């Protein structure tokens, strides 16, 4: 067991930090510190391309596909320095962290050639089409239909919560391709170009006034027959494989963004005098401790190479960070008091901490609600009996 990084790794940290901070002080200073996922989308696509031009867009990928074959420690370091430098979240994180690794793991050579260079270069932005109005926590009950017709897939149905669909180029969609099939059987995983007459994207205005999420409608939408990853009927396997990538190194970058949020709360507490309130002090200390433990939980999860057993740190990670961040939002409002309820201007737009309070209500819902997480922990982790299923 070892926590420290080697001298060589510390040099790499310096290299990352220098480049990232240089960018945020120079050409891309206009996007520094943006905390919503939608602001300045066009500039952030340029940022994706800038990362790619300097081989920083997907360092964990194999070098033949634009990556650096970075070690785990290097990926950890890059993710930490990325957020520390105040660089905004990646608009192509779904392409880099989910679509790319899925294609690398399950795609054909031809599909790799077709998709990976564009993703790595920041030219192809991906979004995710899993949830439907009737398939949220119960993901396997998707109803969006796909059928093969004259060498093309024809897709009809509706996806929801497709985050960033309005600025994306491609979407991967789980479709029901076997008539009359139920649950995880008969599903197929398709990659579709968004810019086509059969696809319509409508924003969903959220409680914070922003519209990061969308509804995506498919009406005889089309993609080539060879746009499916895995075989016909293997959609569930591919989707589950993809979700396993979600708990990767990016979580550490996310944590540095949390670090920045907690630091803002600490600064606000000093300014408002809340820092003298013993109850607030206890809560800030708890938040600090929770954040540190999240880091070490992630390092345990990433260091673990024994995949023969369920990894408890990985299984509990989602509910842990989501619950922590929701509490952080509540703490922010208690530190700010009523000032936290006032927008800066006339528009319904929120500074970081007020936005954190509102947005964090989504954290305990998306990607598996806290309730579903508890079922998973009890059933997969502890091996307790599964919830009974209805017939529908």
């Amino acid at each position, binding site marked *: *067991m*070892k*926590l*420290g*990084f080697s001298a060589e*790794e510390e040099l790499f940290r310096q290299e990352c930090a220098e480049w990232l901070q240089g960018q945020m002080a120079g050409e891309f200073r206009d996007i520094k510190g943006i905390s919503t996922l939608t602001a300045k989308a066009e500039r952030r696509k340029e940022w994706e391309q800038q990362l790619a031009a300097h081989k920083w867009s997907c360092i964990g990928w194999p070098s033949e596909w634009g990556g650096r074959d970075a070690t*785990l*420690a290097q990926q*950890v370091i890059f993710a930490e320095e990325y957020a520390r430098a105040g660089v905004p979240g990646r608009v192509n994180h779904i392409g880099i962290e989910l679509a790319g690794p899925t294609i690398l793991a399950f795609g054909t050579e031809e599909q790799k050639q077709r998709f990976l260079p564009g993703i790595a270069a920041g030219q192809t932005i991906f979004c995710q089409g899993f949830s439907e109005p009737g398939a949220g926590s119960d993901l396997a009950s998707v109803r969006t239909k796909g059928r093969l017709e004259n060498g093309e897939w024809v897709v009809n149905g509706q996806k929801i919560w497709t985050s960033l669909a309005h600025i994306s180029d491609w979407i991967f969609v789980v479709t029901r391709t076997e008539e009359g099939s139920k649950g995880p059987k008969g599903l197929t995983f398709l990659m579709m170009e968004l810019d086509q007459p059969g696809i319509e994207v409508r924003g969903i205005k959220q409680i914070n006034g922003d519209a990061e999420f969308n509804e995506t409608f498919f009406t005889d939408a089309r993609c080539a027959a060879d746009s499916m990853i895995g075989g016909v009927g293997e959609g569930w396997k591919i989707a589950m494989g993809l979700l396993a990538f979600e708990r990767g190194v990016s979580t550490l970058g996310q944590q540095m963004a949390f670090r920045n949020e907690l630091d803002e709360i*600490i600064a606000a*507490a*000093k300014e408002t005098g809340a*820092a*003298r309130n*013993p109850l607030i*002090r*206890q809560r*800030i*200390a*708890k938040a*600090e*401790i*929770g954040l*540190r*433990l999240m880091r*070490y*939980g992630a*390092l*345990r999860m*990433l*260091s*673990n*190479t024994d995949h023969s057993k369920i990894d*408890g*740190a990985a*299984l*509990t990670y989602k*509910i*842990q960070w989501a*619950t922590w961040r929701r509490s952080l939002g509540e703490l922010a409002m208690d530190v700010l008091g009523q000032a936290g309820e006032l927008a800066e201007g006339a528009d319904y737009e929120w500074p970081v901490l007020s936005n954190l309070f509102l947005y964090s209500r989504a954290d305990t819902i998306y990607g598996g609600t806290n*309730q579903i*997480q*508890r*079922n998973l*922990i*009890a*059933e997969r*982790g*502890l*091996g*307790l*009996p599964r*919830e009974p299923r209805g017939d529908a």
Partner: protein
Amino acid sequence: MHFVFTEEQAMIAETVRGFFAEHATSERTRKAMAGDGIDRALWASFCTELGLSGIGIAEELGGAGLGMIEFAIVAEAAGSQVAALPLLSHAMAARAIAVGGSAGQQAEWLPGMLGGEVIAACAGTDAVVQEGGTLSGTFRFVPHGASADLFVLGDPTGAWLVRADTSGVTVTAHTTMDQTRPYATVTLASAAAEALPGGSAGLVAARETGWICVAAEGLGVAQAALDRTVAYSRERTQFGRPIGSFQAYKHRLADMVVEIEQTRSAVYWAACAVDEGADEAAVALHAAKSFAADTAFMCAGNMIQLHGGIGFTWEHDAHLFFKRARALQSMLGSGEWHREQVATMILGEAA
């Protein structure tokens, strides 16, 4: 960076888990509870057969070498059986002498302590009165104090060795809620005391060791409370179903898992940080002690609740975990105190 056990550490973990599961049985622990809270035969084989009493003590001092990670592994395993051992007192006292003692003091005391023949206890107080090689003062809540042959006693200015059989030493045993680790009050009235030359450094080391011990025991308690409750939830049926199939029950167990996983990170982060001399060792220790004790209490409380009536009986072991967990919360600084230390680091003094 490699934040999982090495092969050697995994082997130690397997060995100590097996050792405590086999020997620190409920029957033996209860027998010790009726006495002074020490299973002497268990302590003897822990010290001599396994040679684990010297973990964290340098090999040139007769210890087993290794560090706080390995010590935490041992304390976790002991906690998971609520073993009736003077582990906490011993480890704190031995570290104080190893770090702050003179060569003569080390040679005089460490071999007997590591061999299990001498039981030592460690405690602190706000202020003592020193007068020509003697010490006066009162030390409360000394763990296993009534069984100790030697005391390592400190105040903010230094630390001293005091033999239990010296005149001027009065030891009052207390019937204590956690009978596996009873407290005593030690009162010194001009008792002969020998200063540790590096007393302050010795006390710091003792305190760190104590925090790691308490945190790791808490992890063991919490995990055992979970494991035993999960096993029960599969056996016990009500309404024609195993009670572990009810969502209200499962979700409570899941919440325990979430806290336990964070506790595991906390304990081994703190142990690693101390071993590596990392800057964040202080915050890690405060985090580990406060978080682990709270997790242990949450899990042990749930253990009673989720066992229903049987969990409230003397016969069932749930109360051993519950009482140990409560003791862990209060000893060596409450959770609030530790969190306030963290708050002070990031916010400055309260007022």
